[in-house]
């Protein structure tokens, strides 16, 4: 029985084959075709991989020219300038990958929102001046048809930096540089200070520098939402997810001295969807690392710093999260409407918040007492022991303050020299950085975004020379000397 069936089958097979050859047309093997159809049927059955009704609209696109990791104010600013400076409308496809669209832990929304030109480095001053110009004309830069104008809530109250006798000479030099760059900053003696702000105790103050205009604070959330709105209208794609893997190709090259150098190029970014194992590989030409406090991890994913120590391959991106507290207090007898953002000689700062005698401020902890950045819990003892004594000493009215609330946020802290990292990585050639600004990223974001976009599109910085901020300084050990880090 079995034999006859087999024979029949063989016979039919032979017959069909015969027919096929007689017709002489078909190039594909019949068996191959059958097995392919079988595979197709199998994949369509439940549990199979092919699903025509499967909705993939929540996934990011499969291809994108530029993938920006991090949708904070820096990432969005890069996206904005990339679209703004592109040669032809729609020439570049930009995808912004943001882990949390509520921005609950993002440094942007949790920051105090200050902007100042009182830096010591000309580049930092230029970045700030460019940004303040952007913010002043924000409704022109970020104008969207049929959308209401943005209300940035800029408080042009200025920054007041105090220096002790030790720091007076440095402050004088800094103000000279700031004035050369075009910032409206003036120096004040303790007597002048006392006259202008009678609520300040000038004990221990040798010199003060005060920003007359273009300095103050604004609503960071408004800038973020304005950028988001504009960038979306320019055709940038957004995706909520996490970058888990970079697929890269590597080329090994030999230097003149005989050492081996491995050049890497990322060609695929794996974006994992939130709360699921699903991921989408996104083919891309350029990756921009704007992940803020977590950009060190992203750089590690791309293999940066995974080499023998002391070499360029072994140089890590020295950016890590650092927790900073902001306290909001009420003080009925506190300084009035004219209060600028005051930075004390001790490093503590405060500013007015609204009209109801509320103030907010804080202080950066020393290197030894750095809190654990694992969560965003607030340490209230820190205010009692470290911040309040400094404040009460500087402003006697603050003896009787009452803390209303407090929150914590992350600095994208650059442990090497507390300054930003901008531009491409020398070995992972298509990863660009826009991170590490250690607390002044928000105020410089508009200018940094432009610098990165120029680097990507033109290959060099045009508006502001950001060469000192390149990654290679970590390997060469060239620290940027910026004295005014708050």
């Amino acid at each position, binding site marked *: 029985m079995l034999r006859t069936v087999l024979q029949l089958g063989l016979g039919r097979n032979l017959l069909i084959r015969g027919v096929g050859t007689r017709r002489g047309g078909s190039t594909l093997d019949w068996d191959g075709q059958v097995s392919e159809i079988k595979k197709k049927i199998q994949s369509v059955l439940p549990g199979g991989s092919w699903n025509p009704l499967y909705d993939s609209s929540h996934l990011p696109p499969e291809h994108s020219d530029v993938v920006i990791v991090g949708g904070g104010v820096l990432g969005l600013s890069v996206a904005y300038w990339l679209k703004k400076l592109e040669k032809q409308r729609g020439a570049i496809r930009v995808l912004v990958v943001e882990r949390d669209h509520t921005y609950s832990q993002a440094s942007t929304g949790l920051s105090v929102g200050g902007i100042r030109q009182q830096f010591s480095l000309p580049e930092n001053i230029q970045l700030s001046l460019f940004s303040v110009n952007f913010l002043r004309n924000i409704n022109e830069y970020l*104008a969207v048809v049929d959308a209401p104008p943005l209300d940035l809530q800029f408080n042009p109250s200025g920054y007041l930096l105090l220096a002790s006798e030790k720091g007076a000479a440095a402050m004088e030099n800094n103000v000279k540089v700031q004035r050369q760059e075009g910032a409206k900053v003036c120096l004040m003696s303790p007597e002048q200070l006392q006259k202008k702000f009678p609520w300040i105790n000038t004990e221990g103050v040798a010199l003060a520098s005060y920003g*007359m*205009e273009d300095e103050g604070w604004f609503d960071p959330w408004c800038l973020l939402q304005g950028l988001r709105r504009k960038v979306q209208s320019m055709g940038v794609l957004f995706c909520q997810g996490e970058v888990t893997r970079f697929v890269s190709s590597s080329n090994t090259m030999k230097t003149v001295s005989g050492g081996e150098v491995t050049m890497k190029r990322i060609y695929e970014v794996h974006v994992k969807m939130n709360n699921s194992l699903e991921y989408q590989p996104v083919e891309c030409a350029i990756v921009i690392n704007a992940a803020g406090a977590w950009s060190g991890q992203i750089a590690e994913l791309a293999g940066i710093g995974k080499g023998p120590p002391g070499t360029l391959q072994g140089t890590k991106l020295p950016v890590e999260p650092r927790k900073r507290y902001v306290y909001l207090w009420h003080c009925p007898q506190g300084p*009035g*409407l004219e209060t600028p953002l005051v930075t004390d000689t001790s490093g503590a700062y405060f500013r007015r918040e609204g*009209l109801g005698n509320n103030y907010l401020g804080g202080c950066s902890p020393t290197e030894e007492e750095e809190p654990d950045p694992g969560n965003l819990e607030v340490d209230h003892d820190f205010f009692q022991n470290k911040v309040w004594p400094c404040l009460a000493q500087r402003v006697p009215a603050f003896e009787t303050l009452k803390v209303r609330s407090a929150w914590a946020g992350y600095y994208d802290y650059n442990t090497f020299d507390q300054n930003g990292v901008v531009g491409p990585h020398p070995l992972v050639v298509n990863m660009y950085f826009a991170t590490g600004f250690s607390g002044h990223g928000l105020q410089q974001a508009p200018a940094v975004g432009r610098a990165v976009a120029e680097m990507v599109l033109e290959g060099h910085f045009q508006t502001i020379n950001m060469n000192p901020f390149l990654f290679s300084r970590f390997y060469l050990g060239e620290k940027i000397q910026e004295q005014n880090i708050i």
Partner: protein
Amino acid sequence: MAAPRASLRLVAPIWNGSTRSIHGLSGEMAPRGNQRKRTLLQLLTDCFCDVEALREYLLQKQLSNVHWKNRSFTHIEEQYGPYIGGAFFILKQGGAVKFQDKEWIRPDGRGRFSLEFLKFQAVPVEAVDASGCAINYQGLDNLLSMKELQSLSLKRCPHVDDWCLSHLHPLANSLQELLLAGCPQVTERGLACLHHLQNLRRLDISDLPSVANPGLTQILVEEMLPNCEVLGVDWAQSLKLELEEQPRDTA
């Protein structure tokens, strides 16, 4: 972005209907016979691939128009000095200028003014009335070189905002009167930086729609500028009360 896009589409058909020649904005419907029209259409589609793009362009045009109005007349300033340059700018905007010990100079209804003031090169400008002008931050630069300016009126200027107020500090030594009534963009945040103007004797901050708490703001501004008479809400309110009370008295 769904909402603005939807409204854009609502606008598009009307626009297309009214301008027949640009009917086929997508380029596909362009008449093939007329080569010249086609290239024009292609040009249009290349430049404005969407009605949104066109409208965005018009929006930018509108914004740059304000900038153009606020350009400074550098050639006049170079030739005649900062006072004449600033005065020319204000008169061109439609405002009025008063040179020291001279009469007010105002443009007539058509915006024309006599150029007699060009000979007052050495005379400083004492007062500027820029009520209702389209002056903005950039245009304010023209006034900052007038070091003897005592009175500045920026009433009902639509483009004067907090940035402009923070820009006034170079006039701190001379400015005695500042009128900001009716500026739609001025808020308490900008008023806070008027403490630079320590010589201010009179400040009008009535009728500012963007100030959230006008009464409290006025008190705080009075505290901040103790030597200054501040006209605020209660001034406007008392005016209304008087108007209401008057008929009663007569009755």
